[in-house]
């Protein structure tokens, strides 16, 4: 059983205190939803969990050990931010290969093709990303989730720009991830199936 835990996180942006004393814990097979109005600090909280932003107070623990900048945690984490990290000049397949290689995961052309086929980009896989729509770019990120075996997902509004079918696709990926013993922290406004183990409401 693996666990991701946050204890007493606090963070401020400039003069604004976004949240104070936020704690949560997720264990294998669970995901937790971050909710809250715009500007309530969902993105910042996710960045704190990922280790991109240093919280003013509090700790993030992975398997009971401080996550911080630890290599063990970085190797376990798949982070999806607002900007998906897609390069205009690379093709869909090259973007996927780059994102996956960055995580140190080996995926051959066949596996990438299968993943892109699953998200509906098989015919467009040799097209440069500049010609893809916003939703299709998001789908490259979904293909990455399908290939990456990282046990922790920290995702910021993963459904932005996705259509209904894309949402179902994401739900099936999330189901597999959870069933495989993964944990996830997801900031989203959409109701998702499977339902989250808990909801964390910010800015209340």
């Amino acid at each position, binding site marked *: 059983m693996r666990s991701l835990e946050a204890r007493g996180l606090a963070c401020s942006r400039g003069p604004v205190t976004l949240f104070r004393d936020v704690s949560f814990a997720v264990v294998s097979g669970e995901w937790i939803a971050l909710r809250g109005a715009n500007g309530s600090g969902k993105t910042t909280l996710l960045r704190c969990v990922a280790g991109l932003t240093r919280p003013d107070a509090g700790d993030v623990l992975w398997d009971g050990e401080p996550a911080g900048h630890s290599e063990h945690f970085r190797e376990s984490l798949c982070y999806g931010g607002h900007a998906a*990290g897609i390069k205009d000049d690379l093709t869909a397949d090259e973007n996927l290969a780059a994102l996956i290689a960055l995580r140190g995961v080996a995926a051959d052309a066949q596996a990438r093709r299968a993943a892109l086929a699953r998200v509906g980009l098989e015919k467009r896989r040799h097209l440069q990303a500049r010609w893809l729509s916003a939703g299709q770019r998001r789908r490259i990120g979904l293909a990455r989730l399908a290939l990456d075996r990282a046990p922790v997902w920290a995702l910021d509004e993963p459904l932005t720009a996705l259509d209904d079918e894309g949402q179902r696709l994401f739900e099936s990926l999330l189901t597999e991830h959870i069933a495989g013993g993964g944990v996830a922290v997801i900031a989203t406004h959409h109701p998702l199936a499977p339902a989250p183990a808990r909801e964390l409401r910010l800015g209340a």
Partner: protein
Amino acid sequence: MSAAALGSYPGGFAWAFSRDFRIAWRNPGETVLVIAFFVLVASLFPLGVGAESRLLERIGPGVIWVCALLAAFLSLPQMFATDYADGSLEQMTLSAHPMIGWVSGKIAAHWIMTGLPLTVLSPLLALQYGLQADTLLVLAAALAIGTPILSLLGAACSALTLGARGGGMLLALLALPLFVPVLIFGAGAAEAQASGLSPSAQLSLLGAGLIVATMALPAAVCVAIRIALD
């Protein structure tokens, strides 16, 4: 579910190097711009100053160096800014590979795409100034050692100005003064050769500078990127 992720320094280096190189190959505009700027400006001086050979020979090495320095500077603002804007920098920072690996890979790719072509072209451009063959060689050697220092220093400054308003102007204020020692020793090497002295002192100092820069600056870039993302 196990973490199959395996990060390594060479893995990160190769990743960043090949990716940046491929992107530049697809979209060569920026590299071409840097080289065209260098060629144009270095060719303007003989036209403007006139064809007096003694004067041209005298100013040649210095002018070529200043042109190379400004051309190298042109490409700096984009070094991390596009990756910062499209979210790649976050993904790289959170990657399984150690940060210093891919940072070094990006700097190496930057040098291959700017410093190396400038070095290769410099003897050709220096012909317009009527420099002797041995001086041309020393000039190219000095550029070969000096331009990697420019890429390293430039990377640190570029990372420091990430996300800052008016980043371009700030970058100029930050980077150009730091380039000064490289300029002095680089141009000095060719001038020493032209006046019949040995350029080895200047070249050795440049070499020492390159070693120090290679050891220290990638780590500084990593810190600057962390601050920018925070």
